[in-house]
């Protein structure tokens, strides 16, 4: 009983010493509500609704000159547009930040926009433009920036696509050994290492790295990456003369990719 009373007293004291949460401007509150809706729609896979809600958020944030919010929403719109397979549309959104004069948007968000632009351009194999965007992002990032590992991983991918396999392998290995690296970027680095080793005909190491990447991607439930890992495993197993194993991987890869296609709709 005494404990309960003491607990209540502590609660009352905490309440007395506090002030009510300051209310935000109504437009900003409304923008935050719609932003929440958009993120909820995105999590549930409703990309069209997410895009619609983010567009409304953007208009509200623009109306109150919330430059940080505007940049964040533009990046979100670009990401959703990219997920809807409209890469040109996504690049157009990102250009609104990267081609703007530097003082308009915060440096961190400009770096993020350049990074995402480089990712999309690398996917499209527009390597010179991707290199330029990646350089812009790297310029804005010091060693401790949040995208540090992503930038290095992307750099390794770029080197691999440009044919500099050895440098790509070395950079990806360095990234994978970082202690603070997150799971997504670690899986990406492992996949890059495996692909570089496959190119260098180091099939045994490549097989191991693809398997490591697969294990991580399974924990992250990233179907697209799982399909990629399985396809890599199938290729490498075949090179190693393990035809049966290769066939099994290939079949699994096809199943995963088919399921992914069906879930993403027509």
């Amino acid at each position, binding site marked *: 009983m005494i404990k309960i009373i003491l607990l209540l007293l502590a609660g009352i004291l905490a309440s007395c010493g506090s002030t009510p949460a300051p209310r935000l401007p109504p437009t900003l509150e409304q923008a935050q509500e719609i932003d929440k809706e958009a993120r909820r729609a995105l999590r549930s896979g409703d990309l069209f609704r997410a895009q619609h809600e983010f567009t409304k958020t953007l208009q509200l944030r623009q109306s109150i000159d919330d430059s940080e919010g505007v940049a964040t929403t533009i990046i979100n719109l670009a990401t959703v547009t990219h997920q809807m397979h409209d890469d040109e549309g996504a690049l157009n959104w990102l250009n609104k930040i990267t081609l703007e004069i530097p003082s308009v948007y915060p440096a961190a968000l400009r770096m*993020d926009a350049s990074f995402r632009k480089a990712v999309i351009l690398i996917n499209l194999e527009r390597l010179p433009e991707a290199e330029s965007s990646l350089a812009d992002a790297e310029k804005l990032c010091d060693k401790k920036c949040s995208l540090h590992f992503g930038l290095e991983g992307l750099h390794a991918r770029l080197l691999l696509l440009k044919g500099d396999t050895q440098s790509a392998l070395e950079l990806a290995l360095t990234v994978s050994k970082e202690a603070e690296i997150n799971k997504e970027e670690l899986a990406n680095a492992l996949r890059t290492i495996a692909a570089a080793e496959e190119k260098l005909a180091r099939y045994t190491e490549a097989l191991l790295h693809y398997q490591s990447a697969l294990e991580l991607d399974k924990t992250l439930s990233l179907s697209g990456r799982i399909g990629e890992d399985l396809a890599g495993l199938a290729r490498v197993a075949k090179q190693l003369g393990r035809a049966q194993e290769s066939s099994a991987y290939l079949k699994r890869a096809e199943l995963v990719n088919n399921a992914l296609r069906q879930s993403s709709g027509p």
Partner: protein
Amino acid sequence: MTLLADKDERFKNLFGKAALFVLLAAIGIAATLLWTGIKKGAFAAKSPIYFVADSGQGLSEGMPVKYSGFKIGKLNTLTLDEQGQVKVEVGVDSKYLKLLREDSVMSLIKEGVIGDGVLELSRGTESKSVLAAGAVVRFERANGLEQAVIEVKNRILPILDDLHQTLHDPQSDVRQTLKNLRELSSELKGTRERVDHLLGSVDTNLNSEVGPLLRSLRVSASNAETLSTKLDHDLPVLLKKADDNLENLRLTTQSVKDAVQKSAPQLPGMLGEARDTIDKTREVVENTKEMYESLSTHWPLKDSAPPAETTPIKMDSHD
């Protein structure tokens, strides 16, 4: 010797006085003539100018010569020379010669459409030398109404000739068109006969078919009359029943109204209570919301409330 004694003083020097009167009158007449002559330019120095015309038509002695609308001289003489041309001399006030140049042109013009003819001298080219007395200038006749009529006549006559020829040519378009019109007219006559025939047959058909139709209509009208008589008989009964129903409805409405009036004093209270309840509910919801918002910023609820996401949605280097 004096026949009569000139005893009246007023008749003294009568001859002298009469001579003086006549002299003054003569001087007055001479001054008037002189003044008139000066005004008319009779004493102004004249310079002769000549021109040659193909005929003397429209020219006459005394005809005024004008420059820019001002009279500066007149036609003095008209003579026919050995070549049959008319040589004309005009006298121009010498003081105006300096305004004219040696290439001045003398034109015979009409003052207005049907006015008198006058000679008009043009100034000539500025760079040329001043016209000298006794010089010969070029002459031309300006186009008057007669000339215009002649020109119109010259233009219209060929057209009339062409028209005449066209109307008399059997192969011309006009003749062909008239021929076609004639044929069309004769065909229209046939068409009209056929239309007349058709109208006649329509009339016959109408007589044969419309008659029975009218008879049928008459029968229908008779039936309608019967029906109307029946309605006259039945309608009052129906209306009475309708009146009864309306009366019942009125009584029912009155009952409802009485019921509402009885309960009316209670209604505002009920509505007020309902409104109060809604207001209180709203207040409770608002308070709860405020309390939640306030508490959500403090321990222990601070950590349980999800913070608004302000960072961009995730995208990694392989997306």
